[in-house]
């Protein structure tokens, strides 16, 4: 790091900062990550940091732009021929970073390999299970058949990068089979991808070195098919402690950091750094247990939360604007749904849930709880931005309308065990929609719990409304985009009108950058060094 100017010592602190930080090393971009990818293997761990890293080295068939809208990746076109058949046209003239040509064989190999990744803690089979048949019409055309209509296939194909069949040890002929492929050879272990000679993809960068816990080096891929990326080299360092991350940025050790703490943002900006923030696909919500009576966190034999009026009262008594202003310092957007507009399936006209404590008291009285009741609100305190303080604020607001609330804050690993064991009557959590459309939060959080249909996986409030279920199931089988969006909007409207779940706000994701750098905030919260540009 060039930090030679001895004059800087005599200047004021902030001027010194501007001097040192302004010197973005010629063509190397250094990034401080809030959490470290667990592997370079793009199919090992389906989690934000891993996926963001994978986007540098591997390209998916279909890409997602900053708002998670689909755009061409390794495929230039995709169309549904009928309800269960898709034709995918692959980009011609693409080569892997080792010079091999990219063909349909690599795609088939990738889809075949995904279920074979050993020890994957969060496998990508979630996104390939709809595929029943996959055949190459020629080297650059694929025909995908699905098990029933799969309108989300393009979204699912946008979640995983394509790896090289030859480098991974596949035979010349790879054929897809639902119960196992042929010609795959020995599927490589994830650790092999930590070797730069093995991590071969078609992305804008190639792996230079991966030293766990220390740093990740990426160098420009000269064979990249898109616009040549700006940086010769990108160095990523895990700086999991937020104080250390901010210090590294201020000291000029790194040029960009993820998630600067809310309370430091004004100071960082005041020192001349750039802040980039934008709506994420993550909603922070409160789930209210509607499963059993009695419920563990409420005294008495009844479960008041089964009454929609009580849920509405609790929703109306939260002052979302105050939370936005005082706790989030502006870095959130009060929510009225589970996904922010204009993402797919949202109702753009639906306002955030208003703050109306008087109406809340009336509703409680109507439901027979004039004197309120006592409730425990469970919350993690190290998972979402300001999660603990938000719960404290909500508890005070609920107490003000007569519902005595006690907060039970825990570290995430302990919280999630309690939550999944149905030990909370009310809990605060967050949901990020990986596919970037409404069926993700509705299907997981609101639909009736039904493992056979893969619905309601995180519906720990045990809300159940067949009307919503039917709309959702229909939407998930409707390939026509317009019709599907209409169905999702309707399902979302019903869920919100009946207060099946209580959204609080959408998180804004924030990055801080050295002066002169710009980054377009991404809804999927990925940090892509390849998308960082100089301001001029």
């Amino acid at each position, binding site marked *: 790091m060039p930090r030679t100017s001895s004059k800087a010592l005599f200047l004021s602190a902030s001027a010194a900062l501007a001097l040192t930080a302004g010197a973005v090393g010629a063509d190397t971009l250094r990034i401080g990550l809030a959490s470290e990818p667990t592997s370079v293997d793009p199919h090992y761990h389906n989690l934000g940091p891993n996926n963001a890293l994978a986007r540098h080295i591997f390209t998916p068939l279909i890409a997602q732009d900053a708002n998670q809208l689909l755009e061409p990746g390794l495929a230039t076109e995709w169309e549904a021929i009928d309800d269960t058949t898709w034709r995918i046209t692959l980009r011609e003239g693409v080569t892997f970073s080792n010079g091999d040509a990219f063909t349909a064989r690599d795609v088939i190999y990738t889809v075949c390999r995904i279920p074979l990744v050993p020890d994957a*803690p969060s*496998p990508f089979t979630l996104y390939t299970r709809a595929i029943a048949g996959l055949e190459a019409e020629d080297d650059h055309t694929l025909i995908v058949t699905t098990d029933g209509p799969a309108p989300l296939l393009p979204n699912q194909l946008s979640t995983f990068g394509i790896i090289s069949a030859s480098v991974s040890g596949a035979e010349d002929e790879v054929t897809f089979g639902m119960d196992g492929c042929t010609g795959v050879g020995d599927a490589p272990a994830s650790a092999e991808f930590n070797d730069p000679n093995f991590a071969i993809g078609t992305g804008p960068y190639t792996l230079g070195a991966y030293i766990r816990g220390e*740093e990740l080096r990426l160098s420009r891929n000269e064979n990249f098919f898109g616009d040549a990326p700006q940086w010769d080299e990108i160095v990523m360092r895990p700086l999991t402690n937020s*104080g250390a991350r901010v210090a590294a940025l201020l000291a000029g*050790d790194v040029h960009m950091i993820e998630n600067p703490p809310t309370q430091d943002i004004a100071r960082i900006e005041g020192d001349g750094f750039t802040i980039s923030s934008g709506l994420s696909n993550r909603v922070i919500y409160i789930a209210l247990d509607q499963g059993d009576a009695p419920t563990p966190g409420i005294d008495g034999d009844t479960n008041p939360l089964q009454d929609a009026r009580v849920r509405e009262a609790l929703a109306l008594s939260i002052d979302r604007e105050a939370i936005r202003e005082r706790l989030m310092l502006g870095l959130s957007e009060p929510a009225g749904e589970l996904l922010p507009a204009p993402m797919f399936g949202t109702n753009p006209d639906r306002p955030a849930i208003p703050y109306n404590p008087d109406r809340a008291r009336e509703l409680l009285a109507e439901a027979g709880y004039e004197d309120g009741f006592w409730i425990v609100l469970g919350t993690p305190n190290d998972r979402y931005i300001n999660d603990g303080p938000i719960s404290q604020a909500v508890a005070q607001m609920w107490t003000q309308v007569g519902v005595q609330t006690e907060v039970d804050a825990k570290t995430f690993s302990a919280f999630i065990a309690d939550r999944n064991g149905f030990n909370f009557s009310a809990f605060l959590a967050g949901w990020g929609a990986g596919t970037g459309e409404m069926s993700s939060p509705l299907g997981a959080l609101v639909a009736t719990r039904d493992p056979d249909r893969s619905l309601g996986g995180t519906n720990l409030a045990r809300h159940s409304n067949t009307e919503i279920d039917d709309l959702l199931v229909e939407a998930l089988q409707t390939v026509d985009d317009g019709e599907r969006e209409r169905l999702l909007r309707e399902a979302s409207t019903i869920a919100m009108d009946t207060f099946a779940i209580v959204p609080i706000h959408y998180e804004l994701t924030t990055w801080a950058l050295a002066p002169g750098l710009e980054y377009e905030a991404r809804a999927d919260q990925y940090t892509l060094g390849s998308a960082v540009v100089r301001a001029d």
Partner: protein
Amino acid sequence: MVAYLLRRLGQSLLAVIAMAVLVFVGVYAIGNPVDILINPEATERQRLEVMERMGLDRPLWEQFWVYFGNLLQGDFGRSFVYGESAMSVILQRLPATMELALFALVLAIVFGVPLGVIAGLKPDTYTGRGIMAGSILGFSLPNFWQGLMMILIFAVFLGWLPAGGRGQTTEFLGMRVSFLNADGLKHMILPAINLALFKMALVIRLARAGTREVMMQDYIKFARAKGLSHRRVVFVHVLKNIMIPVVTILGLELGSMIAFAVVTETVFAWPGMGKLLIDSINRLDRPVIVAYLMLIVFLFVLINFLVDLLYSVLDPRVRLAQRGAQ
């Protein structure tokens, strides 16, 4: 000596087993690692598949039995998070922690002992009082605050030293180390001082108390009466006699510096084992947590043993007592 060694070994084995059982049950009680690792959008069936693959669907005693069986064959299990051998994940981080702890230890001795002796010889002068006041600061300021202040002053305001990370490394005996090149050393200075300050304060206090006590002893008066120079009295007779408590305490402290340098490693983003432990606890990566703590127990036993050996070098009475016991 052999009987003594065997007894020590047996004791440490018992400690390792007891610790493994405790940690195993403890981590099991916190929750299910799959809930944390898996993408929330995964289906119930996938969740069960992952649990089955990791063996987490079986009852606790069976999981422990399998684990223990593998352990006897030297297999510490595979990390849930990284999918690699838990021990190799830890050992990758060991050199970074070791060099930091040893560097900090050297700093604590090189500065702590002389300052303590000076303060002990001249307890009522400004120098002596100043040293003691400084050591109080070293004791009482919280470690993480010291670290953040050092970063603020030396990295952010002055820009002399980097704010964190390990910098350039050199290959040495098959390990990557920082202390052999200028950039690496620069990265090591702040975290090493941060880690050393508390120990230094401790050494100063021990050395001062020891010096004051030893100076009153008859053999010092005798040495003086014999006409030995002040230099020789201090460097031979005083220094050797105050070293026993210092060595005992530093031995124990070295163990804790290696095992639990978590605060320093976190504040300075130093890629050592302590940070790995914290990350692993947050993700309930049980194989790594258990293997880590076993390694630490082993290290403590080893260090204590070395301290015992050092005793007999420093104090002839220990040697005589051992011979008498045989």
